């Protein structure tokens, strides 16, 4: 934690088990979040971005015409 935040909330250091482990937790979770975003954006793009984003806003999802 930063010197100023340590002054405000010194118990934060104990919660995260000290600075080195706080850093590790921070970067692992940050990387997982980035991965989460990338995977989900990829899924939207694969499904068809315009139809997919439109369905998020309006709730209407246009199904592909059935092929015979």
């Amino acid at each position: 934690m930063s010197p100023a935040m340590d002054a405000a909330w010194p118990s934060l250091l104990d919660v995260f088990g000290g600075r080195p482990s706080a850093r590790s937790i921070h970067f692992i979770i940050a990387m997982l979040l980035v991965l989460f975003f990338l995977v989900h954006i990829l899924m939207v793009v694969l499904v068809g971005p315009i139809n997919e984003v439109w369905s998020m806003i309006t709730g209407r999802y246009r199904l592909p015409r059935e092929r015979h």
Partner: protein
Amino acid sequence: MAGVITRRKLIAGVAAGGSSIALSAWTGPTYDSFFQDNVLSIGQWLNYHVQRLIIGNALAQEFPESDMSPVFRTNGNTDPGTPEYQKLAADQFTDWLLRIDGLVDSPTSYSLAELRAMPSRTQITRHDCVEGWSAIGKWTGVQLGRLLKQVGLQPNVRFILFHCADNFDGTPYYESIDLVDAFHPQTLLAYAMNGEPLSIGHGAPLRLRVERQLGYKQAKYVMRVEAVALLSGMGGGQGGYWEDAADYYWYAGI
């Protein structure tokens, strides 16, 4: 519909995007003063004000003697090396005077003996360097707020500047803090470290301790304290040597 984005196009696009990100990471961020002045500065402003709101007058953590670091590294300049400074050091700083002036009612000079005779504060705190290392040491000195009350600040004072004896390639080191930190009880002009007179490596005869900010704020070799209304009149105008030289944030609570 089908065929808008083929799998092949997608893979090519991801590869192109990824490689451009990798390339920009490889070449490093290019300095962009527009981005610095108009985007990053907003983050700094927000960070400063939000932290001030959250932190108030909270004290930095103090530690027992058993937590003190066996080795407290010296960093930055470890000896000003100028003829004037060497002369002062040769006499154990008996001829040294701390000048407090600027927008004050009664500009005053203090000798080291006078500062040592004043009521002191001793605190064992952690020094956090911007480089990532930290060390716990014991600091003894006069509370800056006590000195500022003695000389009397004028109503338009907003910052306290610290002029130092050391320099980097001829550019003098200096730092500045706001009045919240200047009057914080743990903000000291320290003349002793770990129970002994401050060594030259750690900033003899006097250094600043601003315990809720990073190491580059803890100006060593303080020669003169100046009360100012604006930071623009000194150096590059950013409030400190590293702020001018390398765009360090002026508020180092981080």
